[in-house]
């Protein structure tokens, strides 16, 4: 029986910080996603409104994809900084 990682991992003192950061950022994104789904479910006509020359639905779609990437980069930056600081 062998669980545990396939390669030897060192100790990570930043793990707690990264977990809290990940949960916080997850909650933020989930709220935005939930608002998007809620508008579509309750008032889909609002998604036909024009914002920046596009339908609100297109702006929301690009926004959610872009937000995911931006948050991912920010998360990685903060995690890398914490690892450098706490793990030496």
């Amino acid at each position, binding site marked *: 029986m062998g669980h545990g*990682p396939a390669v030897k991992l060192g100790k990570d003192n930043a793990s707690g910080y990264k977990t809290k950061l990940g949960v916080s950022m997850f909650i933020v994104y989930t709220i935005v996603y939930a608002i998007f789904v809620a508008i*579509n479910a309750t008032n889909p006509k609002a998604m036909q409104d024009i914002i920046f020359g*596009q339908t609100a*639905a297109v702006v929301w779609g690009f926004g959610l994809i872009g937000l995911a990437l931006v948050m991912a980069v920010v998360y990685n930056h903060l995690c890398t900084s914490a690892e450098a600081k706490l793990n030496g």
Partner: protein
Amino acid sequence: MVYTQSPLAIGLFVTFVLFVLGLSFYLARRTSSAEGYYAAGGNIHWFTNGVAFAGDYLSAASFLGICGMIATAGYDGWMYSIGYLAGWIVALFLVAEPMKRLGKYTFTDALDSKFNSKAIQLTAAISTLLVSVFYLIPQMVGAGVLVQPLLGLPHWVGVCIVGVVVTIIVATAGMASTTYVQFFKGALLLIMSTVVVIAVLVRGLSTAPENNGVAYHDFKTMQATVALEISEPGYTVVAGLDSAYGEAGFVKLSKDGQETIWQLNETTNGYTLEETLFMTKLADGTKLFNGAAKEEGAFFPVGHVKELRMNGQEVAATGAVGPLAYLSALKDSTIVLWGKKYVKEGDATTTIYYQKPTPGARVLRPGLKFKVDNATGLQKFNFISLMLALFCGTAALPHILIRYYTVPSQAAARKSTIVAIAAIGFFYVLTLFLGMGAMTNGVINLTDNNMSAPLLALSFGVVLFAVISSLAFATVLGTVSGLIVAASGAVAHDLMDNFLGMKMSDAGKVRAGKISAIVVGCIAIYLGIVFEGMNVSFLVGWAFAVAASANLPAILMLLFWQKTTAKGVAASIMVGLVSSLGLILISPDMWVRYGMLPGDAPIQFNSPALISIPASFLALVIVSLMTQKDVPVVVSDAAEA
């Protein structure tokens, strides 16, 4: 539609297959340990792994299915892209690093890392196998569907080619060869999809889109009196207002022995008749397309803009435009979508595809496929449930999760997820342009919208079609190899090694993995042939619903709730599995497949996630609280990096 085989497409596909097979045999010489076979030795670079994630994740369902859905239902198809991408946020923020920290070869390892529980090993392995098989069947059937236009071979040959090639890829070097196949496939998919989108934008929009040098079909409109006297000479009425056609809003006419069906639109002094496309299935199973055999090619591709507006002006063509101007022009224009109605006449059933001019802004917002406008509570519930399944499913797909074991550190797991988000997010942006491009470039095959992306490429010439078609085939190879690794790992590592306790040497574990891969490959070939002709793309939805319901609650609670016990995890998986599958099997969509009316189904929603995910969480909490004395669990903050 009739497709013609392209020697170039065949050549490209054969080149890709020979390349990946050569690579697999080369890597096989370096894959002798279980670590090497199941986790590529854990030393794949994070960037390579990130692109391989994209290659693994972007299945035929993404590439062909989403583009086809956008081409026929507009924004609603793109909702899948948005939901799938959002799911990667769950993977990055909650799952990536702990998965790397806790697991070894399979998803079950991570769940069982603190317990060594037979119940978890068994239930998680069953869940892995079910999810992988649900995912596998559409890929294999898709391979058979693709091989017909690409190579001109029968369905079963396509299934066998994919099955044999993929089994060789996996059985030679396991995760190592799978990783590089997925890497190359993911990279090629992104590059070539970008090329097609650039071509779409350079061509711009037109009310008469040219298709590979062939002029677009000139749709005819005629006038008729109240008594159905047709304005154009030569037409006689075959089935009029009092027929089944008339009741459905159509009329069947004949001219020079050729029967056609027309949509009736009432006017003040009679009717306007608009041309339709139709497919008739006779009692003996023969299908006629626009009244003729398929080979005659009478059933032409469709999709056009009816009134094209750019910067407030009505134009015939936009010329080359940027991506935002392209969407903006679509939004201001009127696009012809296609409705579908069935007319039964004796033993024959005719499916009529009729024009539905729709404002572009309406196409570029939800509601054409999903019932959200003036929806009932149950319809809203169904929509929210689907979006929840898409959001929660990604981070619980076993064939995706095992990619975390192929990188050397938690930081690499995190970074590879970010590369995956960038690659997959970019691809999903492209799908909007690919789908809308297909919708407006006269390339949609109304009987099978899955071919929209390759047919869009064909409208730019046979070279691009050859590349995209062979790439679609390669897409199947990449995803199926990942699924076979996951399924064979569940059999060899979770069931044989851990659950049954079969003591095996390192070489024995590799051998067991390879034999399992061959067996799973054979089963995949069998299923791909058995399910021929069935629209099984819905099984991907099953895979997401089951993964989100059975796997994700267990993963999250294990990570974030210290009172989680082994029995709680096993109960959660079983409840998620049974409730999601059970609800799917009694859903209206399945009722139709059983040959019954959807309204008679015991439940009136198709997506079970909004019930099965909470049920799975609840089962874990209740059973864990009842079994606290069994296994105390401590989740430590400091971990291995």
